[in-house]
């Protein structure tokens, strides 16, 4: 199976290693990304994604998104005789940890969006990143539910799908992507994928040594969509960052069994319709009527049972 791809001898896989332990939530990456890629603003709504996050999520005009993850300590049950007014006024809970994560397109090896695209607008580049060709995309929108990470989106005013290109234009000129260039703490590191993996594993080992036992790499191994081009060092369960614990290209997982079942059913239906023309006589034979009544009755009962349970 071949795919639409740009190839160039000598190009190696490039990626991002985003280390959440050094992210300070300054959003310089978001700003740099918007400036370089000439992306529109997201509107002035404050606290859209909770906390100080006014962006909310990745989208057609947001290709880097800094997520604010606030881990609250459990509120201490206070003695009703001795009410701590300050604790009550502040809501009772205290902020234990504040974690930031600069989210981005994962540039998967098994990319759901690339598999879904019917026009060939989505291609793999020579750096093994996935980009949308804006002059080809016709905005069918199929890549959007095909992405298990919720990265790609269609801009309502533009009508085309858009997402991070890993600054393909800059890479071609030998520059690093705008977000990595702007990151003041090197939380976003850019480089050859192999080298980044090596660096990331060393970083995890260092953190474990220094007493951060819950540091782990997300998306560095091949069981996550064949390996992510942009992977992360996290210290919280992935769902806190809006990331699935496991992901793969949904098409590569399901398209063969789903198509076989569907076409099989279609052919069986064609045969079934032909067979029913062979039956002569009355309108609805008794066995068919019985099956139909049973179908309605069991369906009714099952739905009523589930409704009661809810």
């Amino acid at each position, binding site marked *: 199976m*071949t*795919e*639409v791809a*740009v190839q*160039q001898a000598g*190009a*190696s*896989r*490039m990626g991002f290693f985003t280390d959440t332990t050094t992210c300070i939530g300054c959003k310089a990456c978001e700003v740099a990304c918007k400036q370089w890629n000439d992306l529109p603003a997201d509107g002035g709504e404050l606290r859209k994604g909770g906390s100080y996050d006014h962006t909310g999520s990745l989208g057609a005009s947001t290709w880097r998104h800094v*997520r604010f993850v606030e881990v609250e300590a459990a509120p201490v049950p206070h003695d009703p005789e001795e009410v701590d007014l300050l604790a009550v006024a502040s809501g009772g809970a205290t902020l234990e940890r504040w974690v930031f994560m600069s989210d981005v397109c994962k540039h998967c*090896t*098994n990319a*759901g969006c690339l598999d*879904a*695209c019917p*026009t*060939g607008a989505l291609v793999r580049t020579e*750096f093994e990143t996935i980009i949308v060709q804006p002059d080809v*995309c*016709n*905005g*069918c*929108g199929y890549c959007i*539910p*095909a*992405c*298990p990470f919720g990265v*790609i*989106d269609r801009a309502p005013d*533009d009508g085309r799908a858009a997402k991070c290109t890993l600054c393909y234009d800059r890479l*071609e*000129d*030998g520059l690093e992507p705008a977000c990595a260039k702007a990151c003041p703490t090197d939380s976003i590191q850019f480089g050859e994928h192999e080298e980044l993996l090596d660096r990331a594993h060393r970083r995890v080992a260092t953190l474990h040594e220094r007493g951060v036992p819950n540091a782990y790499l997300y998306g560095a191994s091949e*069981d996550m969509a064949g390996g992510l081009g942009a992977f992360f060092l996290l210290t919280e*369960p992935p*769902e806190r960052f809006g990331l*699935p614990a496991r992901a*793969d290209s949904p*098409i590569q997982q399901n*398209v063969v069994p*789903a*198509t076989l*079942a*569907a*076409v099989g*059913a*279609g052919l069986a*239906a*064609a045969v079934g*319709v*032909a067979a*029913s*023309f062979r039956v002569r006589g*009355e*309108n*609805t034979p008794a066995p068919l009527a019985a099956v139909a009544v049973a*179908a*309605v009755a069991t369906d009714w009962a099952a739905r009523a049972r*589930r409704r009661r349970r*809810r």
Partner: protein
Amino acid sequence: MKPALGTPGGPARWRRAREGARVALHGDNFADGAWSFLFKEGDTNYATAEAAGAGAPGGLDVVQGPMMKAAVWTWEVPLYFWFGGMAAGSSFVALACDVAGDRRAARLSRAVALGAVLPCPVLLIMDLGRPLRFLNMLRIFKPRSPMSMGAWCLVAFSAAGTAAVGADLLGRDRAARRLGAANAVLGSYLGSYAGVLLAVTAVPVWARSHLLLGPIFVATGVVTGAAACRLALVATGREPADPARRALGRVETAAIAAELILSQVNEARLGPLASALETGPAGRWMSAARWFARGGLALRLGRGTAGSRAHNLASSAFMAAALCFRYGWVRAGRASAADDEAVAQTARASAH
């Protein structure tokens, strides 16, 4: 910094891949897909937090969404699915009429199939973000993408359907029969691929239905195709005792029963995810579909062989039920993708 390619500051050179060129890491991994990832036998419930652990520490306690994005499709897409299913169902009817030797009914069914497929491209183009670029759909042939295969199938079906009706008009019976038979084969994909299209996304309620969504869409398509052809036969003055008209009534009844049975099996397998199909706007569409189906069956079975008007009303009710099923399935995807916990837990459950 070492540039990825070329010299610092200088432009890198690149060129398009040759036709048939392979990409490292990709093609070879295609067959390695864990086919049963989203649905293991007997695993209809979410994995518990203890059993999870996909290399990540801790259980699933807090989900801070949004986890994924819902499809942006609007009202045109389910309506297209309805018309596409009707065209596919009518092509089956045309083949059956030919096999049974009823030439006039076959001609009429081929015309119904063509009439049903004509609005499809219009609806699809209306839904595009850039409608003027609709021809880009036929830019490549991509067997892996149901959207690409569906667009090609729609083109082939429309072409063969037009040719078949043209042959009928010219009195070329043999050519029309052959084209009609070819269309029935194409129809087995046209009527079912919409289910595949939804099933191979990351949306939990669609993805977890991936084995039954295609068959469910086929059943709905057969209902609409048979009902449309039956009503067309009635409109052209066929007697109530006409064998084709009676056979189509049986097909409708059997297909709506199959639809209800398959939906039940699917919902039982979905477990808690089925709530996306039963609550909110999707739930209202699904309830409406059920009431239309129940009403149609009551009219059909209650009146026996008498009461032609009741039977026609039943056919119309079945077509309405099918339309509501289409809208319900598409709306359920929006609710399911917005349910962050369901998305997170479906991904966890797949980690084995």
